[in-house]
């Protein structure tokens, strides 16, 4: 009996190991844009994260080399569209030896899980990371239910 139980344990441990490997693989898979140096992907859209913080949604987007003047954000209801245009930052009078950084413009649109209050959306650009904070609309706000 004891023997058999330990076998079962061992099997589950092996499965856990497999599971964690798979998780690691899929996390690698998500980083499609940064994972491959040397490969220029001019049409790729920037990687993003989306967080739900109860009262608001927060999006992070990787936009290296794009200044805030060249980014535009549109919000309507639960639709978000971010577009950007990378200026040619090739320095004058230099000979290029290697050009891996894609010079591109992109547009990426999202369907947000809830409606957001477009008048209160705020965006901030810092060190190539764009953060958009979108307060949820009144109807989508979490409500405290008082127990009678």
């Amino acid at each position, binding site marked *: 009996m004891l023997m058999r139980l330990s076998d079962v344990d061992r099997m589950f441990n092996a499965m856990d190991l497999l599971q964690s490997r798979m998780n690691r693989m899929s996390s690698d898979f998500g980083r499609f844009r*940064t994972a491959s140096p040397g490969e220029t992907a001019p049409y790729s859209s920037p990687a993003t994260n989306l967080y*739900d913080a109860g009262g608001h*949604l927060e999006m992070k987007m990787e936009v*290296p080399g794009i200044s805030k003047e060249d980014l535009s954000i549109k919000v309507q209801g639960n639709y978000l569209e971010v577009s950007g245009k990378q200026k040619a930052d090739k320095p004058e009078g230099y000979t290029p030896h290697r*050009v891996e950084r894609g010079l591109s413009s992109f547009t990426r649109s999202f369907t947000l899980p809830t409606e957001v209050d477009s008048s209160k959306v705020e965006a901030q650009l810092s*060190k190539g990371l764009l953060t958009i904070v979108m307060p949820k609309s009144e109807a989508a706000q979490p409500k405290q239910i008082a127990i009678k």
Partner: protein
Amino acid sequence: MGERTDLVKTENNVPERSREIPAVAPVVDIYENEDEILLYVDMPGVEKDDITLNIDNGKLSLGGVRYISGNGAALWEELVDVEYQRSFSVPQTIDVDKVSAEMQDGVLHLHLPKSEAAKPRQIEIKST
């Protein structure tokens, strides 16, 4: 038998060892003119103080860690904490003392000036 399940449970409760940060090679552009070699390195989200730069014996190593901190529960995550790492061979003619770098919109601009001896010189042809 009860004891045994306890043992197994405690084993599962052991916290995971320190989370490993995946290492990634950043994309670079390399330019050159008569005075210097110029590198543009995409390192979005890396703080200026988290960048390490080493030039030793003709080898330039670049490194930087960036942490993504979001508020709330992640609905999707394509961006993760990343350690940027890349090294290059640089010619010995680089004037290491004058290397300078600045960060702009998540792009590292690295200037590697050539030493005086390595710069092309205009030779005047004397007429006899």
